[in-house]
């Protein structure tokens, strides 16, 4: 089956992922598997925001991890700028990693509790070999803090001393500092209180406008995804059930699952 050369910035072709739940005792071959994803295809272009909606177990987070190279898929492929990430050499992969960043659900958990904020934000510069000069890193960190609306003196604090919203801003700063093309937000605001959620969503939108980044926005919250995304992908039990623009999917859903999902959410 020939795969068309991918013209999108990042895309996944027929991605399947199975987790082994049980193995045969001596042989070691898988006995029971759990299929998290079943032939899912996805694409995103520059500057777009694609929202992935689904409940728990739908596979949306797994898809996000696979697209970002944090997990491998059992079948299928992920292409960045038309190159299969499995075929990339070290340097190409580093460029890929740099351009596809993550923001996770648990703000405090996504940072090492023993690191200072400035080290947390600055670390990607070092690991992606973008910058090694201490002074330069320091000034970039300060610049990022300003961009995400945090005070300079936060830099010397530890994650435990910050609130959830502040930590998530730090996470955004960390993702932003390497100037990525795509940021994958995996339930980035789900753990935040409602009053802080709006701040972070607005911040993300502002940054997107400024830096022209693409977002893959994964969430179970329809209202949030509707606000953030241009294009929506609805997932259920490992497959995509519906795609379209926000109006199409949420106001006039066609698939029964989507209808059920919209009906059970509390946004008017």
């Amino acid at each position, binding site marked *: 089956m020939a795969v068309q050369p991918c013209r999108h910035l990042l895309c996944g072709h027929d991605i399947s992922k199975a987790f082994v739940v049980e193995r045969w005792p001596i042989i070691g071959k898988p006995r029971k598997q759990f299929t998290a994803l079943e032939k899912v295809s996805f694409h995103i272009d520059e500057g777009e925001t694609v929202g992935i909606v689904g409940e728990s177990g739908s596979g949306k987070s797994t898809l996000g991890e696979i697209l*970002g*190279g*944090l997990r491998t898929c059992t079948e299928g492929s992920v292409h960045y700028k038309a190159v299969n990430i499995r075929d990339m050499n070290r340097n190409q*992969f*580093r460029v890929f*990693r*740099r351009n596809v*960043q*993550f923001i*996770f659900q*648990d703000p405090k*958990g*996504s*940072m*090492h*509790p*023993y690191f200072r904020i400035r080290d947390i934000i600055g*670390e*990607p510069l*070092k*690991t*992606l070999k973008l910058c090694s000069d201490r002074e330069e890193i320091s000034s970039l960190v300060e610049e990022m803090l300003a961009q995400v609306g945090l005070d300079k003196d936060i830099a010397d604090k530890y994650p435990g001393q910050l609130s959830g919203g502040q930590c998530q801003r730090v*996470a955004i700063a*960390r993702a932003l500092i*390497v100037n990525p093309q795509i940021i994958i937000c995996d339930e980035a605001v789900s753990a935040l209180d409602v009053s802080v959620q709006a701040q972070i969503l607005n911040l993300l939108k502002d940054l997107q406008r400024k830096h022209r980044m693409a977002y893959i926005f994964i969430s179970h919250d329809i209202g949030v995804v509707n606000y953030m995304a241009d294009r929506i992908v609805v997932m259920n039990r490992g497959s995509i059930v519906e795609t379209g623009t926000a109006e199409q999917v949420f106001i006039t859903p066609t698939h029964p699952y989507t209808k059920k999902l919209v009906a059970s959410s509390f946004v008017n």
Partner: protein
Amino acid sequence: MTAMVVGLFLLSFVYTPHDPNEMQLTMRFIGPGENPRYILGTDYFGRDILSRIIYGSRSIVLVSFVAVTLGSVVGSLLGAVAGMVKKGPLSAIIMRAIDGLMAFPGILLAMMMVAAIGKGQEGAIVAISVFMIPPFARLVYSLILDSETHLFIKAASSYNISRCRLLFKHYLPLLLPRLITLFTACIGTAIMIETSLSFLGLGVQPPHASWGLMLNEARQHFLQYPYLAMTPGIAIALSVLGFNLLGDGLNDALSKRRSR
């Protein structure tokens, strides 16, 4: 309490008033407290016991610290490597080898090493350090596997962190408290092993002073002059107790800090 015992120890590792090897045959077998010049009395050869105890502490400290340090470093590195490369066969090989090593009872292992390397302090150090490798390897291995689930480890992979950096900058600070506690506990064990080796004549050789050796020498005269055995015995017991308490105290202090 811990601080007190430890303090006592650290003080006692300051060195001796008398030359511990000097034999005063005229002053043999004085009981403790009988002669003000020899506070703890003298032994068969008229050597001052207090000085021998103090001098003996030197070798105990030297051997146990060096051995545990060596063992802990090697063991931790092995455990770390095994933990970081979990997917491949390498980790299985390392961990099974460690298991094999653990199967030998300590003293037996030590005696085998000494038989291979020869008697004396060097032999004791090597033997004990080999014995110390498995506990550290297993602890580091299991702690790494445990910590792998942390989100910040996953996040770090997202910006392409190298395994080396991950190990030293991310994992190490997490492991350090438990490692230090294990270290102090192992010192206690090392002291016991060293003493046993010297008792058997495989460690420090006469005429040097060593608590184990002193115990051995005391055997012959035990019925007449029990103090000959009591002094080194008490010294050994106190030092092992001291380090174990230190380990306990450290464990408490460090876990309080983390749960805060």
